[in-house]
């Protein structure tokens, strides 16, 4: 299923295209790209353009995938001039006007990743080859995102990642055709650590239970680094099978380990079950080392928080965004989404909506659907985030999509923006009110250099426009 369709001729064309792209002077701007609407994979006709939304529609993350899909459909509506326009009115880049993308009506196709890498690659391949999708977007698993990002790079289409939190997506597995708006594990650690220190103190002993795959490993590494930097000790790091459903035999050893904090590097059903099991074992009622035992869930999802019920009360974690923010972009998006669907959007939905808008805006600014033109537009110019002294601080800076001032960093295609530290709410008003915002951590605090050891080993490479 994952076999690529590169032929010798295709390879030569791709190579030539890539070589030409590399040889182009940086002055080659949108106007120049606009001269050509051919010579790249799935160049659209004059009337419409097709986007491919690849989300888990079946499997354990289907609810999250469906929320992402709702956001994509809303974004398509707004791009085509339907509905109330959502965040188009608050987005600081003003290239979008409700007439589609570059005057073409936006159509879409959807694929089901099933949260499996091979299924996700197969559905993305089908959308590119059979449906003519020029951009693929979607997520809910880093393993899937990395696999699909690699496929899009080979095929010569843009990949706008949905929910993917592993450092590797824009670290060792980064690709020139891939872009991530969502935050990452390093940022979670950097945002959470000061809050944890302030709340629980610097003298703590942490026990990690970690999902045994790429996302879990990078989150564990990030949280261990950030908590040890403030003085915490790491008692044990235990890997748990991704397929595990009952965590009792992993929780039991925590009881007498001398640890006074349990960090659950789990997501989705794993998180719901491990947190529920930890609470059942009375960890939250325990006193260890003269302190109350605490639990931390570094990556939160609103949908999964619902599943954990009351067990989540008082537990700290982090998110990319929350519908409770009060900036104009968030207010516009929540109104638009809530009016259409009857409930507030998740942070997975917000990142997917934002990615669709960012892609459409980049095409409009570039004046071309050519992936290399889009890459250039998303990498921006010399704009930078204020207050950050770094040679890597340049890219495409924008605001109004719900996260405050944000930058797509040119060097690794990772978005840099504020990160939210959240806490399980004690008396939620309704099922969508499970989490409350504790702190909006400024982007400066979660900044890292592109050659940071946790992100080392990858090469962005050159953009691939395909055939």
């Amino acid at each position: 299923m994952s076999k690529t369709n590169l032929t010798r001729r295709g390879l030569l064309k791709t190579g030539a295209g890539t070589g030409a792209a590399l040889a182009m002077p940086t002055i080659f701007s949108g106007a120049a790209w606009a001269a050509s609407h051919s010579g790249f994979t799935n160049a659209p006709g004059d009337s419409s353009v097709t986007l491919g939304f690849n989300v888990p529609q079946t499997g354990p993350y289907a609810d999250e995938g469906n929320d992402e899909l709702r956001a994509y459909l809303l974004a398509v509506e707004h791009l085509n001039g339907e509905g109330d326009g959502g965040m188009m009115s608050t987005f600081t880049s003003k290239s979008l006007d409700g007439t589609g993308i570059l005057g073409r009506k936006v159509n879409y196709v959807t694929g089901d990743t099933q949260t499996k890498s091979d299924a996700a690659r197969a559905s993305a391949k089908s959308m590119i080859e059979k449906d003519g999708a020029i951009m693929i977007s979607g997520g809910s698993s880093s393993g899937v995102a990395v696999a699909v990002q690699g496929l899009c790079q080979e095929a010569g289409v843009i990949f706008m990642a949905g929910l993917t939190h592993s450092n590797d997506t824009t670290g060792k597995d980064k690709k020139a055709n891939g872009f991530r708006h969502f935050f990452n594990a390093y940022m979670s650690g950097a945002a959470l650590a000061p809050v944890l220190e302030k709340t629980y103190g610097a003298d703590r002993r942490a026990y990690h239970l970690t999902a045994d795959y790429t996302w879990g490993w990078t989150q564990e590494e990030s949280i261990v680094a950030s908590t040890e930097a403030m003085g915490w000790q790491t008692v044990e790091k235990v890997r748990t099978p991704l397929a595990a459903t009952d965590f009792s035999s992993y929780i039991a050893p925590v009881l007498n380990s001398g640890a006074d904090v349990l960090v659950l590097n789990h997501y989705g059903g794993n998180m719901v079950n491990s947190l529920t099991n930890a609470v059942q074992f009375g960890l939250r009622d325990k006193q260890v080392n003269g302190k109350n035992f605490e639990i931390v869930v570094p990556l939160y999802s609103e949908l999964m928080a619902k599943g954990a019920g009351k067990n989540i009360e008082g537990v700290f974690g982090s998110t990319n965004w929350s519908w409770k923010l009060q900036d104009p972009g968030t207010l516009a998006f929540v109104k638009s989404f809530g009016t259409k669907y009857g409930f507030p959007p998740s942070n997975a939905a917000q990142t997917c909506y934002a990615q669709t808008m960012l892609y459409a805006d980049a095409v409009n600014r570039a004046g071309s659907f050519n992936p290399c033109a889009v890459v250039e537009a998303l990498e921006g110019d010399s704009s930078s985030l204020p207050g950050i002294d770094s040679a890597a601080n340049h890219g495409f800076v924008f605001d109004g999509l719900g996260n405050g001032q944000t930058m797509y960093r040119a060097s690794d295609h990772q978005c840099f923006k504020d990160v939210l530290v959240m806490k399980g709410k004690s008396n939620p008003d309704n099922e969508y009110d499970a989490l409350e915002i504790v702190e909006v951590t400024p982007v400066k605090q979660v900044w890292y250099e592109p050659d940071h050891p946790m992100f080392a080993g990858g090469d962005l490479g050159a953009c691939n426009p395909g055939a």
Partner: protein
Amino acid sequence: MDAIILQILNGLDKGSAYALIALGLTLIFGTLGVVNFAHGALFMLGAFCAVTVQRILSLSYSVLDETKKDFLGNPLKVDTHYIEAWFGPEIGASIIDWSVPLAILFSIPVMIAVGFIMERGLIKHFYKRPHADQILVTFGLAIVLQEIIKAYFGANPIPTPAPALFTGSFDFGVLIGFAENAITYPIWRLVYFIFALLVIAAVFAFLQFTTFGMVVRAGMADRETVGLLGINIDKRFTIMFAIAACVAGVAGVMYTPINSPNYHMGMDFLVLSFVVVVVGGMGSLPGAVLAGFMLGILEAFASMNEIKQFIPGIDQIIIYLVAIIILLTRPRGLMGRKGVMEE
């Protein structure tokens, strides 16, 4: 020592679920000769009986609270449970709190009906077909059932807590001479273990000490001869299928406070339960129970850090490893009988 006792308790607890599902599987295989891959789905349906009862008891009406706003800035809809309005807030809340135990009463007739319809409507047409056909049709049925549940209840886990009386943990260590709080164990997991023992004992007693059970055992041993005696053994086997479905269902109901139910939970248990049946010996009820508890305990021990440091990843393969060793040394499983699933 305390860590070992904790893992034994964990193993017994995991083993309870394995044993209950494997017991039902063996009942069906032993009586009808059908390899029922939909048995995990019956466990899942039982769990969703608990979700259904919780939702029925939590039915509510909305009143607009002008003093509060919802996420769109409109007056907040405040839900009040009918049951609290009818019986008063305290009694109503108590009834909702006890939704899982109450769901057992609901699940018994539902699961018996499901089992009866399943056997009469589908399974009976496959009695004389090869085991491969039976596996395919029951596996297909399991997928259909879980997709129906997902379409109605969604893919996310749904919290279904135990009654407040049974939440929290119990100081088990004090009972056996350890210091206070040295060995604490969740109360509901102990309840689940005791419940499993009672159900297993009831099934064995039913088969051992009733005329009906005696006929069923005779039918399991020699179906043709029992038939020649003028006994409608098919009817009794249909009832046994319904009883097996009921055992899986109530096991599912009681499991919901341990892990929030989701549509996929049956599949999570199915493969392990089949390994339990094979290790115990195809068609052997005591073998299924013994293997269920044994593999549960081994799985719990394999998850200990001390073991994992010595053999990384052992927690993921221990059950299959033990299954291979047992089947190599005892090809019919621990308590398997000659002639079952053999030409």
